[in-house]
């Protein structure tokens, strides 16, 4: 199981933020086209940054806690997953906070 540890951490992030879609009406997954359009170019830019950083020896990954599956640029699949999962969690947080602030401003905390 060790090899899956990095991916499991990311899976936890997805699971923990999933309720925000419904409970605080984030509606991020529902707007999946907008979601993809917002995230994919940024994820691509970060994948490039990551590949350059790996090539220049800024950082490297534990062979024990990663699957070892590499994409072009010696990029672990976990890193690409990171660049998709973190923005997703960020958007869910942002929209959930928007809903919460809206309720506070209207004074209907029970709604």
């Amino acid at each position, binding site marked *: 199981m060790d090899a899956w540890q990095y991916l499991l951490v990311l899976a936890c*992030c997805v699971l923990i933020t999933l309720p925000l879609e419904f409970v605080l009406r984030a509606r991020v997954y529902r707007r999946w086209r907008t979601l993809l*359009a917002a995230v994919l170019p940024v994820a691509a830019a*970060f994948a490039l940054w990551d590949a350059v950083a790996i090539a220049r020896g800024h*950082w490297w990954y534990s062979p024990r806690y*990663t699957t070892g599956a590499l994409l072009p640029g010696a990029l672990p699949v976990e890193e690409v997953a990171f660049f998709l999962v*973190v923005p997703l969690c*960020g958007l869910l947080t942002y929209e959930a906070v928007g809903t919460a602030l809206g309720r506070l401003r209207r004074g209907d905390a029970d709604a």
Partner: protein
Amino acid sequence: MPEYTIATGLACLGVVLAELLWARTGLFRTAQYWASLAIVFGFQVLVDGWLTKLADPIVFYAPERILGVRFPLDIPVEDFGFGFVLVTAVLIRWERAKKRQTS
């Protein structure tokens, strides 16, 4: 100055300038953004702290490529700039797309 430090600094500057001079979504003037950023940073400490813990790291950093300031936990401070740029860039694109759809 170490390379990761420079890269992060430039990326932070880039995303702030992109918002102020080009995208102009008004994101930086909203409580929604700053509250979200605070929450995201809170969770970043947990997740990134786990990834970078020196006792048993998932991600290793070359000491000569970072400032060497690792706080809180063992997180290289540069990672907070990295996270700020990643999340802020996506939120700017998200807000732009939303505005385009409603206008």
